[in-house]
Protein backbone atom coordinates (compact mmCIF):
# COMPACT_ATOMS: atom_id res chain seq x y z
CA UNK A 1 0.00 0.00 0.00
CA UNK A 2 1.27 3.42 -0.90
CA UNK A 3 1.17 6.29 1.53
CA UNK A 4 -0.93 9.15 0.14
CA UNK A 5 -2.17 11.17 3.12
CA UNK A 6 -3.71 13.94 1.03
CA UNK A 7 -4.75 12.12 -2.12
CA UNK A 8 -6.24 9.31 -0.06
CA UNK A 9 -8.51 11.71 1.74
CA UNK A 10 -9.44 13.50 -1.45
CA UNK A 11 -10.51 10.23 -3.02
CA UNK A 12 -12.71 9.23 -0.13
CA UNK A 13 -14.02 12.72 0.53
CA UNK A 14 -17.21 12.84 -1.58
CA UNK A 15 -18.53 9.48 -0.42
CA UNK A 16 -17.47 10.26 3.14
CA UNK A 17 -19.30 13.58 3.21
CA UNK A 18 -22.54 11.97 2.11
CA UNK A 19 -22.31 8.91 4.31
CA UNK A 20 -21.33 10.86 7.39
CA UNK A 21 -24.04 13.49 6.83
CA UNK A 22 -26.87 11.11 6.09
CA UNK A 23 -26.02 8.05 8.16
CA UNK A 24 -23.58 8.72 10.99
CA UNK A 25 -24.61 12.26 11.87
CA UNK A 26 -28.36 11.44 11.80
CA UNK A 27 -27.64 8.45 13.98
CA UNK A 28 -25.97 10.57 16.66
CA UNK A 29 -28.52 13.35 16.28
CA UNK A 30 -31.40 10.90 16.54
CA UNK A 31 -29.93 9.49 19.71
CA UNK A 32 -29.57 12.99 21.10
CA UNK A 33 -33.06 14.12 20.16
CA UNK A 34 -34.53 10.97 21.68
CA UNK A 35 -33.37 12.35 25.04
CA UNK A 36 -35.12 15.72 24.63
CA UNK A 37 -38.71 16.94 24.43
CA UNK A 38 -40.16 19.02 21.66
CA UNK A 39 -40.73 22.74 22.28
CA UNK A 40 -44.24 23.14 23.63
CA UNK A 41 -46.50 26.13 24.20
CA UNK A 42 -43.66 28.62 24.09
CA UNK A 43 -41.28 26.54 26.24
CA UNK A 44 -38.14 25.30 24.51
CA UNK A 45 -37.42 21.57 24.45
CA UNK A 46 -35.38 20.24 27.34
CA UNK A 47 -33.40 17.17 28.39
CA UNK A 48 -35.60 14.39 29.78
CA UNK A 49 -33.27 11.42 29.91
CA UNK A 50 -35.11 8.24 29.07
CA UNK A 51 -38.61 9.71 29.32
CA UNK A 52 -39.28 9.26 25.62
CA UNK A 53 -38.30 5.59 25.92
CA UNK A 54 -40.59 5.17 28.90
CA UNK A 55 -43.29 6.80 26.81
CA UNK A 56 -42.72 4.17 24.11
CA UNK A 57 -43.01 1.34 26.58
CA UNK A 58 -46.24 2.86 27.87
CA UNK A 59 -47.67 3.13 24.34
CA UNK A 60 -49.63 -0.01 23.44
CA UNK A 61 -49.17 0.78 19.75
CA UNK A 62 -45.39 0.64 20.16
CA UNK A 63 -45.39 -2.57 22.16
CA UNK A 64 -47.65 -4.15 19.59
CA UNK A 65 -45.47 -2.96 16.67
CA UNK A 66 -42.37 -4.39 18.33
CA UNK A 67 -44.04 -7.72 19.03
CA UNK A 68 -45.55 -7.84 15.53
CA UNK A 69 -42.14 -7.20 14.03
CA UNK A 70 -40.51 -9.99 16.04
CA UNK A 71 -43.25 -12.40 14.91
CA UNK A 72 -42.99 -11.11 11.36
CA UNK A 73 -39.26 -11.82 11.32
CA UNK A 74 -39.67 -15.16 13.07
CA UNK A 75 -42.02 -16.33 10.32
CA UNK A 76 -40.78 -14.63 7.16
CA UNK A 77 -37.08 -15.45 7.65
CA UNK A 78 -37.33 -19.24 7.99
CA UNK A 79 -40.17 -19.43 5.48
CA UNK A 80 -38.17 -17.54 2.88
CA UNK A 81 -35.13 -19.75 3.54
CA UNK A 82 -37.01 -23.02 3.26
CA UNK A 83 -39.02 -21.98 0.21
CA UNK A 84 -36.00 -20.53 -1.56
CA UNK A 85 -34.06 -23.72 -0.97
CA UNK A 86 -36.96 -25.89 -2.13
CA UNK A 87 -37.42 -23.77 -5.24
CA UNK A 88 -33.73 -23.98 -6.06
CA UNK A 89 -33.65 -27.75 -5.60
CA UNK A 90 -36.76 -28.06 -7.77
CA UNK A 91 -35.55 -25.97 -10.69
CA UNK A 92 -31.98 -27.25 -10.43
CA UNK A 93 -33.21 -30.70 -11.44
CA UNK A 94 -33.77 -31.42 -15.11
CA UNK A 95 -37.52 -30.91 -15.17
CA UNK A 96 -39.46 -29.77 -18.22
CA UNK A 97 -40.08 -26.06 -18.53
CA UNK A 98 -37.79 -25.08 -15.72
CA UNK A 99 -36.96 -21.72 -17.29
CA UNK A 100 -40.63 -20.78 -16.89
CA UNK A 101 -40.65 -21.98 -13.33
CA UNK A 102 -37.60 -19.94 -12.48
CA UNK A 103 -39.28 -16.91 -14.01
CA UNK A 104 -42.44 -17.48 -12.01
CA UNK A 105 -40.41 -17.71 -8.82
CA UNK A 106 -38.13 -14.80 -9.56
CA UNK A 107 -40.42 -12.17 -11.13
CA UNK A 108 -41.98 -10.93 -7.84
CA UNK A 109 -38.47 -9.89 -6.84
CA UNK A 110 -38.25 -7.39 -9.67
CA UNK A 111 -41.52 -5.64 -8.77
CA UNK A 112 -41.52 -2.57 -6.53
CA UNK A 113 -42.93 -3.43 -3.10
CA UNK A 114 -45.67 -0.89 -3.82
CA UNK A 115 -46.68 -2.78 -6.97
CA UNK A 116 -46.66 -6.02 -4.99
CA UNK A 117 -48.90 -4.22 -2.50
CA UNK A 118 -51.48 -3.22 -5.11
CA UNK A 119 -51.49 -6.70 -6.62
CA UNK A 120 -52.10 -8.34 -3.25
CA UNK A 121 -54.62 -5.69 -2.26
CA UNK A 122 -56.63 -6.87 -5.25
CA UNK A 123 -55.84 -10.50 -4.44
CA UNK A 124 -57.05 -10.17 -0.84
CA UNK A 125 -60.19 -8.06 -1.52
CA UNK A 126 -63.22 -9.61 0.15
CA UNK A 127 -65.90 -11.04 -2.17
CA UNK A 128 -64.19 -10.83 -5.55
CA UNK A 129 -60.52 -11.14 -4.68
CA UNK A 130 -59.03 -14.41 -5.89
CA UNK A 131 -58.17 -15.61 -2.39
CA UNK A 132 -61.72 -15.13 -1.22
CA UNK A 133 -63.19 -16.82 -4.25
CA UNK A 134 -60.96 -19.78 -3.64
CA UNK A 135 -61.79 -20.02 0.06
CA UNK A 136 -65.53 -19.78 -0.59
CA UNK A 137 -65.17 -22.40 -3.31
CA UNK A 138 -63.75 -24.92 -0.87
CA UNK A 139 -66.32 -23.93 1.74
CA UNK A 140 -64.15 -21.87 4.06
CA UNK A 141 -66.35 -18.85 3.50
CA UNK A 142 -65.12 -15.32 3.22
CA UNK A 143 -62.10 -14.17 5.12
CA UNK A 144 -61.54 -10.46 5.50
CA UNK A 145 -57.75 -10.85 5.33
CA UNK A 146 -56.73 -7.24 5.80
CA UNK A 147 -59.74 -6.29 7.90
CA UNK A 148 -59.42 -8.79 10.72
CA UNK A 149 -56.99 -8.39 13.60
CA UNK A 150 -56.00 -12.04 13.49
CA UNK A 151 -55.25 -12.28 9.76
CA UNK A 152 -53.75 -8.89 8.86
CA UNK A 153 -50.22 -9.70 10.00
CA UNK A 154 -50.15 -13.18 8.39
CA UNK A 155 -51.39 -11.50 5.19
CA UNK A 156 -48.41 -9.13 5.34
CA UNK A 157 -46.05 -12.03 6.01
CA UNK A 158 -47.29 -13.86 2.91
CA UNK A 159 -46.47 -10.81 0.84
CA UNK A 160 -42.96 -10.51 2.21
CA UNK A 161 -42.30 -14.19 1.58
CA UNK A 162 -43.72 -14.04 -1.93
CA UNK A 163 -41.63 -11.00 -2.74
CA UNK A 164 -38.26 -12.31 -1.59
CA UNK A 165 -38.16 -16.11 -1.80
CA UNK A 166 -37.36 -16.00 -5.52
CA UNK A 167 -34.49 -13.62 -4.89
CA UNK A 168 -32.90 -15.97 -2.36
CA UNK A 169 -33.51 -18.88 -4.72
CA UNK A 170 -30.87 -17.61 -7.13
CA UNK A 171 -28.25 -17.74 -4.38
CA UNK A 172 -29.12 -21.32 -3.59
CA UNK A 173 -29.10 -22.15 -7.27
CA UNK A 174 -25.61 -20.74 -7.60
CA UNK A 175 -24.48 -22.69 -4.54
CA UNK A 176 -26.02 -25.92 -5.84
CA UNK A 177 -24.24 -25.50 -9.12
CA UNK A 178 -20.99 -25.22 -7.20
CA UNK A 179 -21.40 -28.73 -5.76
CA UNK A 180 -18.93 -30.84 -7.71
CA UNK A 181 -20.74 -33.39 -9.90
CA UNK A 182 -18.25 -36.17 -8.96
CA UNK A 183 -19.60 -36.02 -5.40
CA UNK A 184 -23.08 -36.81 -6.59
CA UNK A 185 -21.85 -39.52 -8.95
CA UNK A 186 -19.86 -41.16 -6.20
CA UNK A 187 -22.87 -41.06 -3.91
CA UNK A 188 -25.04 -42.61 -6.60
CA UNK A 189 -22.53 -45.44 -7.08
CA UNK A 190 -22.46 -46.12 -3.35
CA UNK A 191 -26.24 -46.38 -3.37
CA UNK A 192 -26.71 -43.49 -0.97
CA UNK A 193 -30.32 -42.35 -0.70
CA UNK A 194 -31.18 -38.92 -2.09
CA UNK A 195 -32.38 -37.75 1.27
CA UNK A 196 -29.17 -38.88 2.98
CA UNK A 197 -27.10 -37.13 0.33
CA UNK A 198 -29.13 -33.95 0.79
CA UNK A 199 -28.77 -34.02 4.57
CA UNK A 200 -25.09 -34.92 4.75
CA UNK A 201 -23.66 -33.25 1.65
CA UNK A 202 -25.95 -30.65 0.07
CA UNK A 203 -27.23 -29.00 3.21
CA UNK A 204 -23.80 -28.38 4.78
CA UNK A 205 -22.56 -26.96 1.50
CA UNK A 206 -25.52 -24.57 1.42
CA UNK A 207 -24.71 -23.39 4.93
CA UNK A 208 -22.97 -20.12 4.06
CA UNK A 209 -25.74 -19.21 1.62
CA UNK A 210 -28.34 -19.90 4.28
CA UNK A 211 -26.57 -17.56 6.69
CA UNK A 212 -26.47 -14.82 4.09
CA UNK A 213 -30.13 -15.32 3.22
CA UNK A 214 -31.18 -15.33 6.85
CA UNK A 215 -29.39 -12.11 7.67
CA UNK A 216 -30.70 -10.36 4.56
CA UNK A 217 -34.25 -11.54 5.22
CA UNK A 218 -33.99 -10.44 8.84
CA UNK A 219 -32.78 -6.96 7.86
CA UNK A 220 -35.65 -6.73 5.36
CA UNK A 221 -38.12 -7.77 8.02
CA UNK A 222 -37.15 -4.74 10.04
CA UNK A 223 -36.62 -2.20 7.29
CA UNK A 224 -39.28 -2.72 4.60
CA UNK A 225 -42.75 -1.41 5.43
CA UNK A 226 -43.93 -0.06 2.06
CA UNK A 227 -46.77 -2.58 1.94
CA UNK A 228 -47.95 -1.62 5.42
CA UNK A 229 -48.11 2.05 4.47
CA UNK A 230 -50.03 1.24 1.34
CA UNK A 231 -52.37 -1.52 2.42
CA UNK A 232 -53.36 -1.23 6.09
CA UNK A 233 -51.60 1.77 7.65
CA UNK A 234 -50.79 -0.51 10.53
CA UNK A 235 -54.40 -1.43 11.19
CA UNK A 236 -56.73 -2.94 12.15
CA UNK A 237 -56.02 -2.29 15.81
CA UNK A 238 -52.27 -2.07 15.10
CA UNK A 239 -52.39 -5.70 14.00
CA UNK A 240 -50.10 -5.11 11.03
CA UNK A 241 -47.98 -2.28 12.40
CA UNK A 242 -44.22 -2.87 12.21
CA UNK A 243 -41.49 -0.85 13.93
CA UNK A 244 -40.46 1.28 10.98
CA UNK A 245 -44.11 1.97 10.23
CA UNK A 246 -44.51 3.13 13.81
CA UNK A 247 -41.53 5.45 13.29
CA UNK A 248 -43.03 6.79 10.09
CA UNK A 249 -46.50 7.35 11.53
CA UNK A 250 -45.17 8.94 14.72
CA UNK A 251 -42.76 11.20 12.86
CA UNK A 252 -44.76 12.16 9.79
CA UNK A 253 -48.42 11.71 10.60
CA UNK A 254 -48.39 12.78 14.25
CA UNK A 255 -45.36 15.09 14.00
CA UNK A 256 -44.03 13.71 17.25
CA UNK A 257 -40.39 13.70 16.20
CA UNK A 258 -38.83 13.00 19.59
CA UNK A 259 -40.89 9.88 20.21
CA UNK A 260 -40.11 8.86 16.63
CA UNK A 261 -36.41 9.36 17.36
CA UNK A 262 -36.60 7.06 20.38
CA UNK A 263 -38.41 4.42 18.32
CA UNK A 264 -35.75 4.80 15.62
CA UNK A 265 -33.06 4.04 18.21
CA UNK A 266 -34.84 0.82 19.18
CA UNK A 267 -34.86 -0.15 15.53
CA UNK A 268 -31.16 0.75 15.24
CA UNK A 269 -30.40 -1.39 18.27
CA UNK A 270 -32.13 -4.39 16.68
CA UNK A 271 -30.33 -3.89 13.38
CA UNK A 272 -27.00 -3.55 15.20
CA UNK A 273 -27.58 -6.84 16.97
CA UNK A 274 -28.24 -8.44 13.62
CA UNK A 275 -25.04 -6.85 12.31
CA UNK A 276 -23.07 -8.15 15.27
CA UNK A 277 -24.52 -11.57 14.62
CA UNK A 278 -23.48 -11.45 11.01
CA UNK A 279 -19.98 -10.09 11.42
CA UNK A 280 -19.22 -11.66 14.77
CA UNK A 281 -20.70 -15.08 15.18
CA UNK A 282 -21.27 -16.00 11.56
CA UNK A 283 -18.67 -13.74 9.95
CA UNK A 284 -15.97 -16.37 9.75
CA UNK A 285 -18.26 -18.88 8.15
CA UNK A 286 -19.73 -16.70 5.41
CA UNK A 287 -17.66 -17.29 2.33
CA UNK A 288 -16.31 -14.62 0.08
CA UNK A 289 -16.13 -14.88 -3.63
Amino acid sequence: MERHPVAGWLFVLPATVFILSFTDLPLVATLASSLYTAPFAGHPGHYVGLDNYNGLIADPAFRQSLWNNVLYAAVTVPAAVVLAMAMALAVNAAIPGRAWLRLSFFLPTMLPMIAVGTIWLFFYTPQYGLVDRFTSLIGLGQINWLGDTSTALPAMMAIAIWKQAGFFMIFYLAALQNIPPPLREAAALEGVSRFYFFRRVTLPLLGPTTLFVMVTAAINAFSVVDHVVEMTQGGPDNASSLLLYYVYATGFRYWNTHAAAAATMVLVLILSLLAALMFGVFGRKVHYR
Partner: protein
Amino acid sequence: MSATPALRTIGRWISASPIWAFGLLWGLPLLYAVWSAVHPPAYSTEFALNAPLTAANFVDSWNAAPFARYFLNTTFLVLFTVAFQIVFATMAAFAFARLRFPGQNFLFALLLLQLMISPSILLVWNYREISWLGLANTIPAMGIPYLGSAFGIFLLRQNFRTVPKELDDAARLEGCSLPARLWKVYIPLSRGTLIAFALTSISYHWNDFLWPLVVSDSVTTRPLTVGLEIFATPDQGVQWSLVTAATLMSSAPLLIAFLIFQRQFVQSFLRAGIR
Protein backbone atom coordinates in the same frame (compact mmCIF):
# COMPACT_ATOMS: atom_id res chain seq x y z
CA MET B 1 -34.80 -49.09 -18.32
CA SER B 2 -37.31 -50.73 -20.59
CA ALA B 3 -39.57 -47.68 -20.82
CA THR B 4 -39.73 -46.03 -24.18
CA PRO B 5 -38.52 -42.42 -24.45
CA ALA B 6 -42.11 -41.26 -24.84
CA LEU B 7 -43.16 -42.94 -21.61
CA ARG B 8 -40.13 -41.54 -19.85
CA THR B 9 -41.10 -38.02 -20.93
CA ILE B 10 -44.61 -38.49 -19.61
CA GLY B 11 -43.19 -39.81 -16.38
CA ARG B 12 -40.99 -36.77 -16.05
CA TRP B 13 -43.96 -34.49 -16.56
CA ILE B 14 -45.98 -36.31 -13.95
CA SER B 15 -43.23 -36.20 -11.37
CA ALA B 16 -42.77 -32.51 -12.12
CA SER B 17 -46.48 -31.73 -11.79
CA PRO B 18 -46.46 -30.82 -8.08
CA ILE B 19 -43.67 -28.37 -8.77
CA TRP B 20 -45.62 -27.00 -11.69
CA ALA B 21 -48.71 -26.59 -9.56
CA PHE B 22 -46.63 -24.70 -7.05
CA GLY B 23 -45.08 -22.54 -9.79
CA LEU B 24 -48.53 -21.69 -11.06
CA LEU B 25 -49.73 -20.84 -7.58
CA TRP B 26 -46.71 -18.59 -7.14
CA GLY B 27 -47.52 -16.82 -10.40
CA LEU B 28 -51.21 -16.39 -9.60
CA PRO B 29 -51.16 -12.91 -8.03
CA LEU B 30 -49.28 -11.55 -11.02
CA LEU B 31 -51.42 -13.45 -13.53
CA TYR B 32 -54.59 -12.20 -11.85
CA ALA B 33 -53.30 -8.66 -12.16
CA VAL B 34 -52.45 -9.18 -15.82
CA TRP B 35 -55.89 -10.65 -16.48
CA SER B 36 -57.62 -7.69 -14.93
CA ALA B 37 -55.40 -5.19 -16.74
CA VAL B 38 -55.94 -6.50 -20.26
CA HIS B 39 -59.71 -7.04 -20.08
CA PRO B 40 -62.59 -4.56 -19.85
CA PRO B 41 -63.63 -3.68 -16.27
CA ALA B 42 -66.69 -5.91 -16.52
CA TYR B 43 -64.36 -8.90 -16.80
CA SER B 44 -61.78 -7.76 -14.29
CA THR B 45 -62.85 -10.43 -11.83
CA GLU B 46 -64.88 -12.68 -14.12
CA PHE B 47 -63.06 -15.44 -15.90
CA ALA B 48 -64.59 -16.07 -19.28
CA LEU B 49 -62.71 -17.52 -22.20
CA ASN B 50 -64.46 -15.15 -24.58
CA ALA B 51 -63.50 -12.01 -22.63
CA PRO B 52 -62.29 -9.46 -25.17
CA LEU B 53 -58.77 -8.13 -24.87
CA THR B 54 -58.23 -4.39 -24.52
CA ALA B 55 -55.51 -1.83 -24.00
CA ALA B 56 -58.00 0.75 -22.76
CA ASN B 57 -57.11 0.26 -19.11
CA PHE B 58 -53.53 1.27 -19.79
CA VAL B 59 -54.60 4.33 -21.76
CA ASP B 60 -57.20 5.33 -19.17
CA SER B 61 -54.92 4.96 -16.17
CA TRP B 62 -52.14 6.78 -18.01
CA ASN B 63 -54.56 9.69 -18.46
CA ALA B 64 -56.15 9.49 -15.04
CA ALA B 65 -52.96 10.42 -13.21
CA PRO B 66 -49.77 12.17 -14.33
CA PHE B 67 -47.90 8.92 -14.88
CA ALA B 68 -45.78 10.42 -17.66
CA ARG B 69 -44.43 12.92 -15.17
CA TYR B 70 -43.92 10.20 -12.55
CA PHE B 71 -41.91 8.16 -15.06
CA LEU B 72 -39.75 11.15 -15.79
CA ASN B 73 -39.23 11.87 -12.10
CA THR B 74 -38.23 8.30 -11.33
CA THR B 75 -35.89 8.17 -14.30
CA PHE B 76 -34.10 11.33 -13.22
CA LEU B 77 -33.98 10.17 -9.65
CA VAL B 78 -32.46 6.83 -10.57
CA LEU B 79 -29.92 8.20 -13.07
CA PHE B 80 -28.87 11.02 -10.73
CA THR B 81 -28.48 8.72 -7.75
CA VAL B 82 -26.76 5.83 -9.44
CA ALA B 83 -24.37 8.01 -11.47
CA PHE B 84 -23.06 9.80 -8.40
CA GLN B 85 -22.98 6.61 -6.36
CA ILE B 86 -20.77 4.90 -8.90
CA VAL B 87 -18.32 7.78 -9.20
CA PHE B 88 -18.05 8.38 -5.46
CA ALA B 89 -17.89 4.70 -4.56
CA THR B 90 -15.23 3.97 -7.17
CA MET B 91 -13.00 6.77 -5.90
CA ALA B 92 -13.38 5.78 -2.27
CA ALA B 93 -12.99 2.06 -2.96
CA PHE B 94 -9.73 2.72 -4.78
CA ALA B 95 -8.31 4.68 -1.86
CA PHE B 96 -9.42 2.08 0.67
CA ALA B 97 -8.06 -0.76 -1.44
CA ARG B 98 -4.70 0.59 -2.50
CA LEU B 99 -3.74 3.77 -0.66
CA ARG B 100 -2.73 4.42 2.91
CA PHE B 101 -3.81 7.55 4.68
CA PRO B 102 -4.29 8.55 8.30
CA GLY B 103 -7.57 7.60 9.92
CA GLN B 104 -8.28 5.10 7.18
CA ASN B 105 -9.49 2.19 9.29
CA PHE B 106 -11.59 4.30 11.59
CA LEU B 107 -13.21 6.02 8.64
CA PHE B 108 -13.88 2.72 6.92
CA ALA B 109 -15.67 1.47 10.02
CA LEU B 110 -17.77 4.64 10.17
CA LEU B 111 -18.79 4.23 6.55
CA LEU B 112 -19.60 0.54 6.87
CA LEU B 113 -22.21 1.41 9.46
CA GLN B 114 -24.44 2.18 6.49
CA LEU B 115 -24.45 -1.48 5.44
CA MET B 116 -26.75 -2.18 8.35
CA ILE B 117 -28.46 1.12 8.98
CA SER B 118 -29.66 2.57 5.73
CA PRO B 119 -30.57 6.27 5.50
CA SER B 120 -34.24 5.33 5.12
CA ILE B 121 -34.29 4.01 8.71
CA LEU B 122 -33.14 7.43 9.89
CA LEU B 123 -35.84 9.20 7.93
CA VAL B 124 -36.94 11.51 10.73
CA TRP B 125 -33.59 13.21 11.06
CA ASN B 126 -32.71 13.00 7.39
CA TYR B 127 -35.94 14.80 6.57
CA ARG B 128 -34.91 17.54 8.95
CA GLU B 129 -31.49 17.86 7.30
CA ILE B 130 -33.01 17.96 3.83
CA SER B 131 -35.40 20.69 4.98
CA TRP B 132 -32.55 22.72 6.44
CA LEU B 133 -30.76 22.49 3.12
CA GLY B 134 -33.91 23.86 1.50
CA LEU B 135 -34.18 20.74 -0.64
CA ALA B 136 -37.48 19.30 0.56
CA ASN B 137 -39.72 18.32 -2.33
CA THR B 138 -36.96 18.22 -4.94
CA ILE B 139 -35.86 15.22 -6.96
CA PRO B 140 -32.23 15.37 -5.78
CA ALA B 141 -33.44 15.26 -2.18
CA MET B 142 -34.74 11.75 -2.77
CA GLY B 143 -31.27 10.62 -3.89
CA ILE B 144 -28.86 12.70 -1.83
CA PRO B 145 -28.87 10.56 1.33
CA TYR B 146 -27.84 7.62 -0.83
CA LEU B 147 -25.09 9.28 -2.87
CA GLY B 148 -22.40 7.84 -0.65
CA SER B 149 -22.90 4.10 -0.84
CA ALA B 150 -21.04 2.00 1.72
CA PHE B 151 -22.25 -1.07 -0.10
CA GLY B 152 -20.73 0.14 -3.38
CA ILE B 153 -17.46 1.02 -1.66
CA PHE B 154 -17.27 -2.37 0.01
CA LEU B 155 -18.10 -4.27 -3.15
CA LEU B 156 -15.64 -2.38 -5.33
CA ARG B 157 -12.88 -2.45 -2.73
CA GLN B 158 -13.10 -6.25 -2.64
CA ASN B 159 -12.78 -6.24 -6.40
CA PHE B 160 -9.97 -3.70 -6.66
CA ARG B 161 -7.93 -5.78 -4.26
CA THR B 162 -7.93 -8.64 -6.75
CA VAL B 163 -6.42 -6.46 -9.48
CA PRO B 164 -2.84 -7.69 -10.01
CA LYS B 165 -0.35 -5.35 -8.36
CA GLU B 166 2.01 -5.71 -11.34
CA LEU B 167 -0.44 -4.03 -13.72
CA ASP B 168 -0.80 -1.12 -11.34
CA ASP B 169 2.97 -0.87 -10.83
CA ALA B 170 3.54 -0.82 -14.56
CA ALA B 171 1.11 2.05 -14.96
CA ARG B 172 2.78 3.92 -12.12
CA LEU B 173 6.24 3.48 -13.66
CA GLU B 174 4.88 4.87 -16.91
CA GLY B 175 4.15 8.03 -14.93
CA CYS B 176 0.39 7.65 -14.60
CA SER B 177 -1.26 9.78 -11.90
CA LEU B 178 -3.55 8.19 -9.33
CA PRO B 179 -6.76 9.07 -11.20
CA ALA B 180 -5.23 7.79 -14.43
CA ARG B 181 -4.29 4.49 -12.81
CA LEU B 182 -7.81 4.14 -11.46
CA TRP B 183 -9.25 4.92 -14.86
CA LYS B 184 -6.89 2.82 -16.98
CA VAL B 185 -6.17 -0.18 -14.78
CA TYR B 186 -8.81 -0.68 -12.14
CA ILE B 187 -12.03 0.35 -13.83
CA PRO B 188 -11.58 -1.73 -16.99
CA LEU B 189 -10.84 -4.78 -14.85
CA SER B 190 -13.90 -4.22 -12.66
CA ARG B 191 -16.56 -3.82 -15.27
CA GLY B 192 -18.54 -6.81 -14.03
CA THR B 193 -18.64 -5.51 -10.50
CA LEU B 194 -19.53 -2.01 -11.64
CA ILE B 195 -22.42 -3.34 -13.69
CA ALA B 196 -23.48 -5.53 -10.79
CA PHE B 197 -23.54 -2.55 -8.47
CA ALA B 198 -25.32 -0.37 -11.02
CA LEU B 199 -28.06 -2.91 -11.73
CA THR B 200 -28.61 -3.63 -8.04
CA SER B 201 -28.77 0.04 -7.26
CA ILE B 202 -31.08 0.85 -10.18
CA SER B 203 -33.50 -1.85 -9.01
CA TYR B 204 -33.35 -0.51 -5.48
CA HIS B 205 -33.99 3.11 -6.33
CA TRP B 206 -36.59 2.46 -9.01
CA ASN B 207 -38.57 0.61 -6.34
CA ASP B 208 -37.79 2.84 -3.34
CA PHE B 209 -40.87 4.21 -1.63
CA LEU B 210 -40.74 5.33 2.00
CA TRP B 211 -38.08 8.02 1.75
CA PRO B 212 -39.51 9.53 -1.48
CA LEU B 213 -42.96 9.45 0.15
CA VAL B 214 -41.64 11.58 2.97
CA VAL B 215 -39.64 14.02 0.87
CA SER B 216 -41.85 14.54 -2.17
CA ASP B 217 -45.19 16.24 -1.99
CA SER B 218 -46.10 17.35 -5.47
CA VAL B 219 -46.64 15.97 -8.92
CA THR B 220 -43.43 17.56 -10.16
CA THR B 221 -41.23 15.48 -7.88
CA ARG B 222 -43.28 12.42 -6.96
CA PRO B 223 -41.75 9.17 -8.24
CA LEU B 224 -43.73 6.29 -9.74
CA THR B 225 -43.96 4.28 -6.54
CA VAL B 226 -45.52 7.13 -4.59
CA GLY B 227 -47.77 8.05 -7.52
CA LEU B 228 -48.91 4.46 -7.79
CA GLU B 229 -49.64 4.25 -4.08
CA ILE B 230 -51.86 7.33 -4.29
CA PHE B 231 -53.56 6.01 -7.41
CA ALA B 232 -54.23 2.61 -5.85
CA THR B 233 -55.97 3.87 -2.71
CA PRO B 234 -58.34 6.56 -3.95
CA ASP B 235 -61.21 8.12 -2.03
CA GLN B 236 -63.66 7.59 -4.82
CA GLY B 237 -63.63 3.82 -5.01
CA VAL B 238 -60.86 1.78 -6.47
CA GLN B 239 -61.14 0.73 -10.12
CA TRP B 240 -59.17 -2.47 -10.23
CA SER B 241 -58.66 -2.70 -13.96
CA LEU B 242 -57.07 0.75 -13.95
CA VAL B 243 -55.02 0.08 -10.85
CA THR B 244 -53.64 -3.22 -12.11
CA ALA B 245 -52.82 -1.62 -15.47
CA ALA B 246 -51.00 1.20 -13.69
CA THR B 247 -49.16 -1.31 -11.52
CA LEU B 248 -47.92 -3.27 -14.51
CA MET B 249 -46.97 -0.05 -16.29
CA SER B 250 -44.92 1.19 -13.36
CA SER B 251 -43.11 -2.10 -13.05
CA ALA B 252 -42.74 -2.62 -16.80
CA PRO B 253 -39.39 -0.91 -17.46
CA LEU B 254 -37.57 -3.01 -14.91
CA LEU B 255 -39.46 -6.20 -15.81
CA ILE B 256 -38.75 -5.79 -19.50
CA ALA B 257 -35.11 -4.99 -18.84
CA PHE B 258 -34.92 -8.08 -16.69
CA LEU B 259 -36.53 -10.31 -19.31
CA ILE B 260 -34.03 -9.13 -21.91
CA PHE B 261 -30.93 -9.18 -19.71
CA GLN B 262 -31.92 -12.01 -17.40
CA ARG B 263 -28.47 -13.53 -17.12
CA GLN B 264 -26.76 -10.21 -16.45
CA PHE B 265 -29.28 -9.30 -13.76
CA VAL B 266 -29.00 -12.63 -11.99
CA GLN B 267 -25.20 -12.57 -12.20
CA SER B 268 -25.21 -9.04 -10.81
CA PHE B 269 -27.45 -9.90 -7.91
CA LEU B 270 -25.24 -12.88 -7.10
CA ARG B 271 -22.09 -10.82 -7.28
CA ALA B 272 -23.57 -8.02 -5.21
CA GLY B 273 -25.26 -10.34 -2.76
CA ILE B 274 -22.44 -12.51 -1.57
CA ARG B 275 -20.47 -10.36 0.74
